[in-house]
């Protein structure tokens, strides 16, 4: 520990020494440099308002030195505080420089004392606060709260107009039913092809197309039209495939077909 830091009668009494030891061992338990300063200040056993900031600065610097000796990792803010206190100490020891702008060393020391006093005050306030009756420990709320039931009542409404529109919708739905072919009255080309294929092999002679209409499809006009068209289309398809020949002797004359061997 550098001797030149010690001015005046050193107050290195046993108690302080022990406190310093304890401090260093517990350095991790401190809540920052201000906390260390406050703890050190308490060793002065005076009102915080009359604390010797100079002495406090010495104590703090000694604390930091000791920590270093013990190779304890000190956080940067402890070192910043040490540097600042070293600066303050020198300012306090030297006669004030009249050309120096800014706050005097005494102002700075007074502010530090204020900070310590304020921290101490807030600690005490915190203790008083925590000593108040706690809800759930000393004072109790209703154990069986009823809460506020939020009953939601739904009122369903419909008007006569809704009713009539709903009914109209149902009754007119058929008008707009998607168009679906009436399969009963339609002979598909596939059906006609299936019908023609096994027959044409036996056709040695020209035969009228109309004779190939399925039984019963020649009475109803609609069915006959459908059957005629699909059978004709089927013969065209078969002619294309080279399975049969087609001929029509005159316009609107009967269409006749003959199978190819």
């Amino acid at each position: 520990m550098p001797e030149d830091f010690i001015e005046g009668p050193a107050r290195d009494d046993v108690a302080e020494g022990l406190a310093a030891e304890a401090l260093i061992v517990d350095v991790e338990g401190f809540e920052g440099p201000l906390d260390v300063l406050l703890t050190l200040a308490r060793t002065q056993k005076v009102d915080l308002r009359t604390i010797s900031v100079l002495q406090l600065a010495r104590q703090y610097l000694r604390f930091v030195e000791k920590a270093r000796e013990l190779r304890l990792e000190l956080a940067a803010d402890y070192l910043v505080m040490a540097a600042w206190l070293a600066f303050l100490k020198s300012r306090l020891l030297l006669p004030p420089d009249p050309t120096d702008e800014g706050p005097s060393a005494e102002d700075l020391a007074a502010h530090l004392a204020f900070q310590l006093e304020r921290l101490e005050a807030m600690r005490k306030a915190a203790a008083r606060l925590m000593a108040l009756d706690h809800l759930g420990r000393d004072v109790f709320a209703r154990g069986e709260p009823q809460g506020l039931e939020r009953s939601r009542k739904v009122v369903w409404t419909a008007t006569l107009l809704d009713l009539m529109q709903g009914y109209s919708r149902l009754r007119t739905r058929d008008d707009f039913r998607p168009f679906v072919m009436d399969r009963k009255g339609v002979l598909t080309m596939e059906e006609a092809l299936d019908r023609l294929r096994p027959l044409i092999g036996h056709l040695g002679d020209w035969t009228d197309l109309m004779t190939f209409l399925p039984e019963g499809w020649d009475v109803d006009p609609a069915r006959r039209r459908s059957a005629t068209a699909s059978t004709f289309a089927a013969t065209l398809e078969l002619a294309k495939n080279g399975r049969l020949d087609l001929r029509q002797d005159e316009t609107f004359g009967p269409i006749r077909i003959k199978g190819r061997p």
Partner: protein
Amino acid sequence: MTDTPEESLFEAPPLAEQERMVEAILFASATPVTIAELHARLPHGCNAPAALEELAKRYDGRGVQVRRIGEAWAIRTAPDLAFLMTRETVETRKLSRAAVETLAIVAYHQPVTRAEIEEVRGVSVSKGTVEQLLELDWIKLGKRRDTPGRPVTFVVTRNFLDHFGLSSARDLPGLKELRAAGLLDSAGPPDLTPDTPEEDEDQDDMFTPSPAEEEN
């Protein structure tokens, strides 16, 4: 040492104080508290039943009451103030399309079976829809149909007529009137009437005097 140092140490607090204690315990407890539990928590020598009786008297006519629940006691809201404990929010909602259509079918076709409703709507009718209409007291069960299986029929209620401002189900406008009112916006080809012949036949029944009217 006084005469009865031992006794005074365990002297029960005055009844008024016991009453305060019981009050605090009942208030803070999450469940009703039995006499035994009270005695276990009160200082030695307390008379829980007496304190409870005093407390109950004190709360007589107040906003909360000391009530016996089985073998235990609790503080409860006075029954006449129960209304303060619920905040009723009334929400008005439109009846679903399925419900409106089902209701309309019952109204126009009653008495009508579920199968018939489904036939008209073209989709199955959910149980929920029918239940909702029953709950609203707009439809009710009518007589069973005299057909195989004897299915139940549905008819509209007096409440339905009141709600929709009808004096009878016969007041419901017919299809022609609906069309005249522009409600049937089917401007379909004139020859294709929306009503198929067989449906028209049904309609004759449909508007026969409704048994529901008499029943209600």
